[in-house]
């Protein structure tokens, strides 16, 4: 199919005649025909006018624009990045507070910016009280404080995910030293939890490959809490604010047992 065929197809789907489309777009029916059968080339402006007139959705619109050799655009249906499209930290905090599952927001260094009540109950922490914003809230550190790490089944798995992300975010020499002083400080903090965590982290570092950066990422996480039981999650990392490097982490319960455990956790006093 040529882009002209695609153009014809979208016109026919919405049930417009060439004449009707021409009227809407302010061109002649002969012009529409010549584009559809490929006998003439439109300017980008002209093609956009036709697509606008039909309000073609972005996927088909960009397929046609690219097919005709033009730059795609993302500005048609709901300009992609209006002010307010991304979440401010405060909006993000309000958003996750409404979720019935554990959810938190972190930045690209893995520092937790905010976490909903359920997250804090699972980790057994009071984030505001115990951890000042900044490096003290780095997940690598939090996850290797013994009181949290002991609850955590599959520490290796999560560490590997973190390593793959760090390696792809910081392309360059494949050693921890070259990541600079921030991660050196993180390692220093991790060692407070016990020498075992840093040693294990370094071991995993060497045999973990970088991942391909994607707009979304998933990984499994399992907790085992006394009096609550096993909590199994599929963690979903999605964009919160790209300019600020923030991501949502939704810890999605993947069985009935986990939901029952969360109910116990929710109803018992903090």
């Amino acid at each position, binding site marked *: 199919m040529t882009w002209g065929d695609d153009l014809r197809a979208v016109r026919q789907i919405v*049930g*417009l005649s060439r004449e009707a489309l021409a009227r809407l777009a302010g061109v002649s029916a002969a012009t529409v025909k010549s584009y559809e059968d490929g006998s003439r080339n439109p300017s980008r402006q002209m093609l956009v006018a036709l697509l606008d007139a039909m309000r073609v*959705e972005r996927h088909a619109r960009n397929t046609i624009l690219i097919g005709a050799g033009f730059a795609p655009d993302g500005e048609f249906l709901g*300009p992609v990045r209006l002010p307010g*499209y991304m979440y401010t930290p405060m909006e993000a905090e309000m958003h996750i507070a409404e*979720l019935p599952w554990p959810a938190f927001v972190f930045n690209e260094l893995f520092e937790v910016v905010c976490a909903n009540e359920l997250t804090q109950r699972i980790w057994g922490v009071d984030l505001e009280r115990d951890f000042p914003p900044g490096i003290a809230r780095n997940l690598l550190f939090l996850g290797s404080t013994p009181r949290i790490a002991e609850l955590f089944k599959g520490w290796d798995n999560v560490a590997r995910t973190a390593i793959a992300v760090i390696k792809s975010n910081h392309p360059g020499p494949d050693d921890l030293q070259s990541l600079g002083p921030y991660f050196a400080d993180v390692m220093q903090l991790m060692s407070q939890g016990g020498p075992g965590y840093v040693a294990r982290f370094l071991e995993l570092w060497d045999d973990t490959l970088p991942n391909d950066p994607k707009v979304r990422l998933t990984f499994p996480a399992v907790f085992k809490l006394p009096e609550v039981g096993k909590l199994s999650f599929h963690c*979903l990392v999605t964009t919160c604010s790209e300019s600020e490097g923030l991501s949502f982490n939704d810890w*999605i319960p993947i069985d009935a047992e986990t939901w029952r455990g969360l109910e116990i956790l929710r109803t018992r006093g903090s």
Partner: protein
Amino acid sequence: MSWGDDLRAARQVVGLSREALARISGLSASTVKSYEDGSRNPSRPMLIALLYALRVDLRVRNSILIEAGFAPDLESETAGEPSGYMYSLEEAKEHVDQMPWPAFVFKEVFEVVCANEITERVWDIDLEREFTPGIERNMLAVSSRPRFTDICENWDDMARVAIAILKGHHRGAEQLEQLSPYFAEVMQRFQTGNPQYVGRFLALWQGTPARDPKIRFLYPAVFNLPGIGRMSFISVVNTCNEPEGLAFNDWVPTDAESWVNLEKLRRSPRRR
């Protein structure tokens, strides 16, 4: 200066006549002239042939290409997001297949592009067999069919979300009295469904405010299948591919009962 003027300037800088340029690039001199004075529009390959023949540098080449409305030459694109950051359709399909909960991808006009198997089970459909890609798969267009209104327990909530998006996400905003051609067709299909729901949709339209586009939003979905039971979800809508206007919908079961019933559904024989 128009891009045609830039093209002429680039030709004159290297001291080529129109005839000479036409010869090297395999076009006629009158074609070259018509581009320079703006009386005709080239295709992108045609314009690139001229620019290559002139050996203009990358910056000038791209400024002319962009002026003429075309994509710049790839070589010069500065890396913003790494390539592959967004999902292709194939990748998205593979990804939703791995999700243990119902997950699917839709376009910004609510056309379902792909859905994992458990989504099809919850909706009681066979996507590939029953719905050809395109407007046939528009969720709004089919939402008034009895087969869906019968199993959806919070139809009004879902309709309100669709209305808020239609009013808020679309440039110029959709108005019932003057829908864009695509949504006029969607509503025509919608009106062939259960008349009670058609009436409800129109009533809900009035009282539902527009919502501002956000990179992520939530909506509730409650389904109740005969022989299976109730399943409550919160759908998390998040980016799949922004340039292509695709979004992931993750239907997260929100209680123990929903997971029990979802497992029951997974093990039960397919009806369609």
